[in-house]
């Protein structure tokens, strides 16, 4: 499905997708909104996600002459689509195909936040982990080996403190490098137990047969094994309806 036109973005209410689109995900209470505000300043716009009663905040910033559209996703603990917010966040990352996704994590509570990060990484490799509130962590005498974490995850890790502005330049630069393709993350997939992997092994070829060989088919297969029908609804809604003619060629 790679390389097809970005029509799905329209379905998320984003018309001006000429510039690269970056999603901002994260647990609640991680200072995600502070990061969003710090990056976009007054250059933002709020509305609702189309057809949903959930607020969508969108903003723009410029870095190195490049305009970037930043979409603030609802704060969630997980992307397993147990709530409208989780479904929106997941759908945007999976169907909206942002050029990069920043996952904001709380440095004082990293383990809990890594759960969401791992879920995002399963959907797309184009992820930057921004560990916020490092000033708070310092005060609480918490030390984090960022380099080691980046190496283990296979994605860039940027420590930051949105309140003081620390790390935001590096964050913008990292986003830029990812958009331009200079930075190619290579996260290792998470291996599940024998039974799940066995089932995955059987169903993956069938999915690839329909959707083509895609890095995300593993994620899709997992959701189907979980019996998550909202993913199928999503495919119907974001990929198959409007405009069907062009996408039909890609799929059939």
């Amino acid at each position, binding site marked *: 499905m790679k390389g097809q036109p970005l029509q799905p973005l329209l379905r998320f209410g984003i018309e001006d997708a000429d510039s690269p689109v970056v999603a901002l995900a994260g647990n*609640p*209470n991680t200072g995600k909104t502070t990061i969003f505000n710090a990056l976009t300043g007054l250059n933002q716009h709020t509305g609702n996600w189309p057809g949903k*009663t*959930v607020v969508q905040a969108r903003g723009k910033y410029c870095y190195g002459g490049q305009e970037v559209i930043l979409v603030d996703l609802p704060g969630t603990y*997980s992307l*397993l689509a147990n*709530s*409208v917010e989780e479904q929106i966040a997941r759908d945007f990352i999976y169907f909206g195909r942002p050029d990069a996704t920043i996952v904001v994590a709380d440095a*004082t509570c*990293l*383990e*809990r936040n*890594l*759960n969401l*990060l*791992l*879920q995002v990484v399963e959907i797309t490799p184009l992820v930057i982990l921004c560990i916020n509130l490092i000033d*708070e962590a310092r*005060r*609480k*005498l*918490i*030390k*984090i*080996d*960022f380099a*080691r*974490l980046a190496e*283990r*995850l296979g994605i860039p890790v940027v420590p930051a403190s949105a*309140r003081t502005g620390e790390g935001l330049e590096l964050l913008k630069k990292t986003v830029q490098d990812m958009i331009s393709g200079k930075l190619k993350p290579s996260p290792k997939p*998470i291996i*599940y*137990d024998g*039974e*799940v992997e066995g*089932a995955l092994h*059987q*169903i993956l070829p*069938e*999915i690839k047969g*329909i959707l083509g060989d895609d890095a995300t088919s593993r994620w899709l*297969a*997992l959701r*189907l*094994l*979980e*019996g998550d*029908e909202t993913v*199928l609804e999503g*495919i*119907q809604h974001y990929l*198959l309806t409007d405009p069907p003619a062009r996408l*039909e060629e890609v*799929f*059939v």
Partner: protein
Amino acid sequence: MSADLGRILQRAQDLSCGQDAVRDKVVARLYQEAESLAREVVLTEKPARDWDSTIDDILTSKRYGYPSMLALLALVLWLTISGANMPSQLLARFLFAVEGWLSSLFLLLRAPDWLHGLLILGVYRCLAWVVSVMLPPMAIFFPLFTLLEDLGYLPRVAFNLDAFFQKAGAHGKQALTMSMGFGCNAAGVIACRIIESPRERLIAILTNNFVPCNGRFPTLIAMSNIFLGAAALNGGSILAVLLVAGLVVGGIAITLVVSRLLSSTLLKGIPSHFALELPPYRPPQVLQVIVRSVFDRTLFVLWRAVKVAAPAGAVAWALANIYVDGLSLLSHAAGFFEPLGRAMGLDGVILLAFILGLPANEIVIPIILMSYLSAGAMLELEGLPALRELLLANGWTWVTALNMMLFSLLHFPCGTTLLTIHKETQSWKWTALAALIPTAIGVALCFLAAQGARLVGLF
């Protein structure tokens, strides 16, 4: 295409032998991975002193939990009431001086009387009242509220109060949406989206109006200030604070009672699952909080009030100055409401002002004042003492003030909130109910208070 996908889903279901099993394994594996990663890269030298839990030991404790909430409420109200008094008077003095100059200008230009009346005595005066009565308390209350919000105190309120909401058959997050209502009921109603169960969300929406929003806080504060704060010299403002705090607590109590009634009648059901994070306390960025609350909230609400107050001022002036059968339209209308108003310990003008104030609660007091002013002699209106004189001259007693506060707390939501309720519920039935319930309670309580006061001979 979708048939293919459906087939794959079917196949997936056959393979997974029970979906909970796969979901369990996936989630457990992810957390296991997160745990091992965190163990590898996070180094905590020694556990630092945990301020959060020290603070929570006080703010959510059995002994101090509720008293500290009440104390904080009283403190915020006290700062607002005592801090707003002086700037309110200065603003009023300034704005009414400007009115004088404007009037002279109109005289100089030989403008017709009706134009002067409509624009100066109507539009300008209503605006001046809205600004001088509302701006100072809002400019103090909003930043204080935002500070508490930024600190992370609101989830603690929800934590402390949840048992009551649970007994009322409501969602624990209703405590949060209720807190948002203090800022603006329309915002509170929108905030109810965080409650997923439709039944509990409706309960939260229908009861949000029982906490006074910023449009009504100035009314409550002005009323208690006029009849308690200004009346008694010392300790008066303490009394005024206690009265307003008492009304807020009363509003919360009514919220719970009505929630309970709704959940055992129209909106039957069992409380849904509830998990609430108590995030770490974060030192708020004071300057940013002030800027944000002034721009995002204070000026936003003020602007909304101004937009409504200008035409409302013109309408009120016109009603007071268009005569039919020797009486102004306003007097006709006020006369119509007079019996009901009297029975409720108010008067026809007050009830009319509440109805005309439907677009925004902020303009209720200005309309009352303008009606009194246009009917009687002109007064120099400089701040609260003069206001008190005007109200006394129109037959007010402290019972009138009390009932005015009660009805301000308990009447139909403002137009914006009603439209928001309709938008959120997609139903005129629930919107009507949202207006009907508080109004019925307000009328009943005011009636009881008035009759009670009459019985003991105070009114």
